[in-house]
């Protein structure tokens, strides 16, 4: 394959990944890695390096829009980033030690979890009105707009959420993904934070988490400019377009289709990991 063909094909694939990732809220990273490794035979380490960088681009690029909506909570985000960044450093170290086949299998398992999560969506559980003692001392509770009026919410189970966030950070550093699904579980399910606040705060955190492993990735040579350039530009432009279309799209069907695609990719990743082809 010539350099020009490779760049063009990777740009198109990444654009589609970014577009669908923004529409479905699953992020582009989860499809970029299997697309690069399975379709184009790119080494897993280059693929996760390029994916990690594109994760930062979409997170930072969308931040202004999320802030405008008034859902994200900067205190919750900053406090939990202590856990995700520490996890991300551990994950990035492990990525250099774990073999490529094992990485592919772990990636496949995480993809299955992401697909399952996108089918289920939010539980829509009751939002506690008051924080528990620790969350209160950390002043994590806040308010968010419901039908134009500010609605107060409290936060619970901070240690459990903090622990899950460490795990989310480790996965992010190990696999070069945003691991938004795990972050939302930590906030929505464990800490009982409203779903909208959880998803937007998670998006805000993803960039900082990824930046913590990026330095280690760069020094190890995982971030190859020739592979990362079309991935970063493609995912970013796809995500920006996706965010524009989002308001008009019927997301339910799309989410289901995307989840099936992810499931298929997951199985192929695992099979290729076991047979040693990736």
């Amino acid at each position, binding site marked *: *394959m*010539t*350099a*020009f063909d*490779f*760049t063009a094909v990777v740009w198109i694939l990444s654009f589609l990944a970014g577009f669908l990732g923004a529409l479905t809220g699953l992020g582009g990273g989860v499809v970029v890695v299997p697309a690069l490794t399975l379709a*184009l*035979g790119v*080494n*897993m*380490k*280059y693929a996760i390096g390029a994916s990690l*960088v594109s994760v*930062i*681009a979409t*997170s*930072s*690029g969308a*931040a*202004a829009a*999320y*802030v*405008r909506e*008034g859902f994200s909570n*900067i*205190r919750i985000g*900053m*406090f939990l*980033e*202590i856990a995700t*960044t*520490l996890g*991300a*450093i551990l994950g990035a170290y492990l990525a250099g030690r774990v073999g*490529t086949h094992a990485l592919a299998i772990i990636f496949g398992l995480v993809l299955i979890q992401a697909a399952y999560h996108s089918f289920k969506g939010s539980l829509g559980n009751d939002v506690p009105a008051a924080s528990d003692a620790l969350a209160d001392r*950390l*002043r994590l509770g806040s308010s968010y707009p419901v039908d134009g009026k500010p609605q107060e919410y409290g936060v619970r189970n901070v240690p459990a959420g903090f622990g899950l966030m460490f795990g989310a950070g480790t996965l992010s550093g190990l696999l070069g993904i945003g691991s938004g699904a795990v972050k939302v579980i930590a906030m929505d399910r464990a800490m009982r934070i409203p779903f909208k606040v959880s998803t937007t705060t998670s998006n805000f955190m993803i*960039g*900082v988490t*990824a*930046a*913590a*492993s*990026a*330095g*280690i990735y*760069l*020094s*190890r*040579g995982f*971030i*190859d*400019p*020739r*592979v990362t*350039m*079309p991935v*970063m*530009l493609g995912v*970013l432009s796809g995500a920006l377009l996706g965010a524009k279309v989002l308001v008009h799209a019927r997301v339910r069907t799309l989410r289901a289709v995307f989840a099936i695609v992810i499931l298929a990719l997951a199985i192929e990743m695992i099979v290729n990991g076991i047979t040693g082809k990736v």
Partner: protein
Amino acid sequence: MDDRRLETIIGRLLQTGVLAAAATVLAGGVLYLVQSQSGHVDYRSFVPGSPSLRTLSGIVLSAAHFQSQAIIQLGLLLLIATPVARVALAVVGFALERDRLYTVISLIVLVILAFSLIHAT
């Protein structure tokens, strides 16, 4: 200065950083394709590239000599810097709000990020 205003400023800064990074990567990418469009590429096996593309000083030095791949890396470094700048701004913002607890919390995050980025120097 309140949380809302702080977040708006930070959000704008992030967007500007990402656009500047994308423009730099695009410029380096165009240069790279002009120079080596018909050359064959194969990324099947992993080879950690030369230090000029893996260290901060190497990247800056090579980009100053208009090496296309180093210009791309420079843009990517700029991109990696945007969330770091976000945390640094939050430290300043919380300090202006006289919120000691969250000034310390954002400082801890900043130190962790600095630890990781030291690897790239």
